[in-house]
């Protein structure tokens, strides 16, 4: 099974990387970009063949390591 995880800075956390990317886009002439946020995408391949078990495992992985919930939110999907 494959898990696809997206980790993003929380809304209330300033994202200087996103702001720098927005400025970079503006300097390329893309003026219409109001807001950019930069996060992280993680793909995992799992031995598990059961959706429920895999989801529960990935949830724990995110909470324990892949995201820091003080500063980040995460979401994921699991597919075979």
């Amino acid at each position: 099974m494959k898990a696809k995880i997206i980790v993003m800075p929380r809304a209330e956390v300033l994202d200087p990387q996103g702001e720098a990317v927005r400025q970079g886009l503006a300097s390329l002439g893309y003026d219409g970009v109001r807001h950019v946020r930069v996060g992280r995408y993680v793909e995992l391949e799992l031995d598990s063949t059961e959706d429920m078990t895999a989801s529960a495992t990935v949830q724990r992985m995110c909470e324990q390591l892949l995201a820091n919930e003080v500063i980040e939110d995460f979401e994921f999907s699991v597919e075979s």
Partner: protein
Amino acid sequence: MNVAVVTFPGSNCDDDCHYVCRSVFGATTIQVWHKEKSLPSGVDVVILPGGFSYGDYLRTGALARFSPIMEDVVRFAGRGGTVLGICNGFQILCEAGLLPGALIRNQSLRFICESVPVRVETTESQLTSALEKGRVLHIPIAHMDGNYFAKEDTVRGLEDSDQVLLRYCTSEGEVSDASNPNGSCANIAGIMNSGRNVFGMMPHPERASETPLSSIDGRELLAGLLGGSL
């Protein structure tokens, strides 16, 4: 005084800490490899030094937090043992949940390496008990991710219970946006836990502990922890 300095893969201030503890303060100092499962017996102070543990992969401090030695560091702290995290050590302590909040990318997106003024915010700590509140110390910072972030109520909690150790300020001691080098919430440069035995700071006191290094202000902080005469 027995000090353990933990070395993670990628630590680069471990030798400096070891040197200062031993040579400046005369403390018995042991370097402990992160794969050890327990701290040496009789340790009084544990230092998590600066550096780039695990190459800062994922998030700063996120992987070091799972190094085998950390279980015993957490136990040691839980028993009231004194732990000091400097720079990457501070990041690791936050990731390990021993200190609240997190250190994120500097607002400028630049690595900052300079000596900065920081103001002593409390004297109710081992590190600062001999200093006056409001005293300005000049201590180097050297980091890419030193922007302290915590939720508003967490910051308020730290302030209400007098857990803020140091804030970035001007040379005159004024705390302002202009004197904030990295965007930290409330100019916070260092904090402690509610038990007042776990300390984290972005400035490097070990780099300001001997006269040839332009400032000896860091030595005054470490003296509170390590004792010995100045």
